[in-house]
């Protein structure tokens, strides 16, 4: 066998991001099996991982993990380039932008719960704007805003609490 001329040597950072992204993807795929009454209302369990990555390793890693989750998760679910993929991508990007800003809030006052709720709201915001512009070009989509907002509040709170709990339980940061 001809030895490959291309050599990719993954760094420890790559391995860590891959591991965390795998955790997020597993949660996203598991969540897809939960029957839910309304399309678009999902617990967003993968965001627990994103929050932990953000608070532990910083925003850049969180962007990597979030985008890997969107791409790999949609490939696994057969959603790649389907409307749901673009909605997930839009939601992910807006919530990453919001998290990038919100992470600078004073950490003593605003914990993972705040970040989680802010990210959840940014997520539905991005999705609704894309849905309004592209999928349902009618203001009727905004009729569901209160439902999505309530879901974002509840799931944002729960995910934030779980992330805060896991961060407390975790061992001190290591690069491995």
């Amino acid at each position, binding site marked *: 066998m001809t030895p490959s001329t291309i050599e990719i040597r993954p760094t420890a950072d790559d391995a860590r991001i891959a591991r965390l992204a795998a955790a997020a993807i597993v949660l996203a795929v598991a969540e897809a099996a939960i029957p839910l009454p309304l399309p678009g209302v999902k617990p967003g369990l993968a965001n627990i991982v994103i929050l932990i990555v953000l608070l532990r390793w910083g925003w850049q890693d969180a962007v990597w993990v979030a985008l890997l989750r969107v791409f790999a998760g949609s490939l696994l679910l057969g959603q790649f380039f389907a409307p749901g993929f673009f909605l997930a991508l839009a939601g992910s990007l807006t919530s990453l932008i919001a998290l990038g800003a919100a992470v600078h*809030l004073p950490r003593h006052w*605003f914990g993972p*719960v705040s970040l989680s*709720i802010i990210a959840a709201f940014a997520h539905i915001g991005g999705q609704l704007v894309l849905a309004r512009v592209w999928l349902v070009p009618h203001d009727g989509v905004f009729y569901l805003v*209160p439902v999505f907002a309530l879901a974002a*509040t509840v799931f944002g709170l729960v995910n*934030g609490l779980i992330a805060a709990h896991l961060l407390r339980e975790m061992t001190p940061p290591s690069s491995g």
Partner: protein
Amino acid sequence: MTSLQRLARWWPLIRPGDVLTLILALSFCGASAAALWRGGAPDKVVVRAGGELFAEVPLSRAQSIEVPGPLGVTVIEIEPGRARVAEDPGPRQYCVRQGWLTRSGAAAICAPNQVSLMLSGGRNQYDSLNY
């Protein structure tokens, strides 16, 4: 450990600003629901007899209206926020069985007696006939 104690263990994870964020999020939910979902609230009743406008009554106080038609008298009952056809001489009683109408655009039609009742006002999104 009781479930209440178990729940209380989560409390230290919430920081003061988180409570603020939560309150803001919940008030956004309430405000958006109030702003977006109140559009369907009707504020008046339009009663027609034989195709002509018979009465236009505000939906704010209770009263009943007697509308004469070819078969007899149709009685329309109005209460704050809702209205119905209470009695009708028609043979099939469809308009009576519809019960209370509460949404803007909702209509009850007593075709045999040529009387119709429709709620209007608020933001009229669609009428129940065309929809």
